[in-house]
């Protein structure tokens, strides 16, 4: 740092070459600043456009009436998103946290690294591929048709690798000495994990669950051909009956001609974006405070 300041203040006379270098540097910083602006700018515009056009149609009716072909409310879609994401978490949390426990506590071996690798492969698999898999297996082969269960299982497959990885990271933060102390007192494996390690890493595990929830609320592609779409409230059936969800409204209603449909699409987008951004911002603020990960 001192080198630049002395170069700047040393002599009023600068050689041609030095002037050129300073000019290039100035131009470089300007370009970099512009680049940062062009990355953040669109995000702010997305938030602004969706929020301003979404809020303008907010009313009580939006949350109490169901969609019809072109408009109506979002009650069925909101309920459907809650059911699908809740179902996905019910399936995925035990598996993901269990896998996280194995990987962090006993997974420092070949099996552990193989599971980690394949879990990363699953993370990188496009969600539409998972959706198509569920379509041919659950919807057609098993004959469940478009249904809540098919949608929830698809979302669960999607979020399990994230849960496993974040749980593993969280559990690893717990000092080894605490495990050793518990074992020395005669505790067995489950007691050590459930009474010592898991409580110590609870905030991290909850972080993982929240991030998984955010992912599942925002997903669309794997649901289109597994959950289907329904204009009515959920009838409580797990199979043989389609269910609505918010992201479908965004995708399909924006392509319809009427302004009412567009307004509904923006309202749905605003709710989805609000949930996703709140979870992610909240988690980042908390994570920074507790210095986790």
């Amino acid at each position: 740092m001192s080198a630049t300041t002395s170069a700047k203040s040393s002599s009023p006379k600068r050689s041609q070459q030095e002037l050129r270098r300073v000019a290039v540097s100035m131009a470089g910083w300007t370009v970099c600043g512009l680049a940062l602006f062009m990355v953040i700018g669109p995000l702010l515009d997305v938030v602004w456009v969706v929020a301003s056009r979404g809020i303008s149609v907010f009313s009580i009716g939006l949350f109490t009436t169901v969609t019809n072909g072109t408009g109506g409310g979002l009650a069925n879609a909101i309920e459907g998103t809650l059911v699908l994401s809740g179902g996905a978490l019910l399936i995925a949390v035990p598996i993901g946290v269990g896998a996280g426990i194995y990987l962090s506590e006993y997974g420092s071996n070949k099996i552990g690294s193989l599971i980690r690798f394949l879990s990363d492969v699953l993370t990188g698999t496009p969600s539409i591929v998972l959706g198509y898999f569920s379509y041919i297996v659950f919807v057609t082969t098993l004959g469940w048709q478009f249904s809540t269960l098919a949608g929830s299982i698809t979302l669960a497959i999607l979020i399990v690798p994230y849960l496993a990885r974040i749980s593993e990271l969280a559990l690893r933060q717990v000092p080894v000495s605490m495990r050793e102390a518990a074992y020395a007192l005669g505790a067995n494996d489950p007691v050590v994990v459930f009474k010592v390690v898991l409580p110590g890493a609870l905030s991290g595990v909850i972080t993982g669950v929240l991030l998984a929830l955010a992912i599942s609320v925002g997903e669309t592609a794997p649901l289109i051909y597994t959950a289907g779409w329904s204009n009515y409230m959920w009838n409580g059936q797990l199979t043989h009956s389609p269910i609505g969800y918010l992201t479908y409204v965004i995708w399909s209603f924006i392509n319809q001609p009427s302004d009412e449909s567009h307004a509904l699409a923006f309202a749905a987008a605003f709710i989805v974006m609000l949930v996703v951004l709140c979870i992610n911002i909240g988690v980042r603020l908390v994570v920074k405070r507790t210095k986790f990960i």
Partner: protein
Amino acid sequence: MKLKPFRLSVLGLSLLIPAALGAVVLFLAVYSAQAVSFNGLDFISGITWDLGNLYGDPVTVRGVQVPPGANYGILVFIVGTLLSSFIAILIAVPLSVGAAIFLAEAVPAKIRPLLSMLVELVAVVPSVVFGLWGIAVLIPLIAKYIGPGLSAMLGFIPFFAGGNAGGGYGLLATSMVLALMITPIIATTLLDALLQVPKENRESAFALGATHFEVVSKAMMPMVRSTLVGGIVLALGRALGETMAVLMVSGGAINIMPATIFSPVSTIASFIVSQLDSAEQDPTNMAVRSLAEIALVLFIITLAVNAGAKLLSSGVLNVRNNKR
């Protein structure tokens, strides 16, 4: 060895993850087997996707029943996928490199967490919301200004001619939305690497009289180059599999190769979503099986790209450890 039921049960739970992955690959492969034998190599070299006459009596071709006239070629979608992702990378790399450099070196440490959080948040916005923004904001912008502007400047190259074709929907819109979605992946990877460059390297460059920007561009960037490449490949993997945003802004082309940057395109992922409805009408089920084959192709492409990213980033770690 003593049997440990608790360890075995959590092992069982964690083995469900590889099992799910295996099931995905296995079922897609088994389900598409008939399509693979029917389509042969024409599948990836043909440009005609024709479901055939779905109401005609199925005919037997190469040992399988298909609707008369059915032909499944996906070269158009492979080209659309690779081309849109490639252009997205071309747009995203300079933006994310600039942003990461600015965040790492020019921004006061106090507001850096805020700004880098904003960059990370770009990555968590759902794809379908980007698609909605694309339709509402980006498409009109391309149709009115960006498209005609590009044509006016670069129109002598055929690839950039005809700036308002398609009303904004097409390859350019797809690539721009994809670029927006993948910049945070490259930028945060690079930012982390830049913040880890040893102080000594920076200080020795300063001591040689380099300006601050020269320190970054000539002393620090070469050190993080391989991390940058790893981040780019990772971002490519994400862009290839992106579905909803692409589906909403791409214009959805079938049976025609993109001729200019304004042509409508389809990617593999967006095509699967847009076609399943019609494929379901096929009484012989061959269309649905061929879509499964497409999904398998997409899986293989992204697997290869992600494995490449993994190899690159593990190689990076070795280099850095050796240097220390």
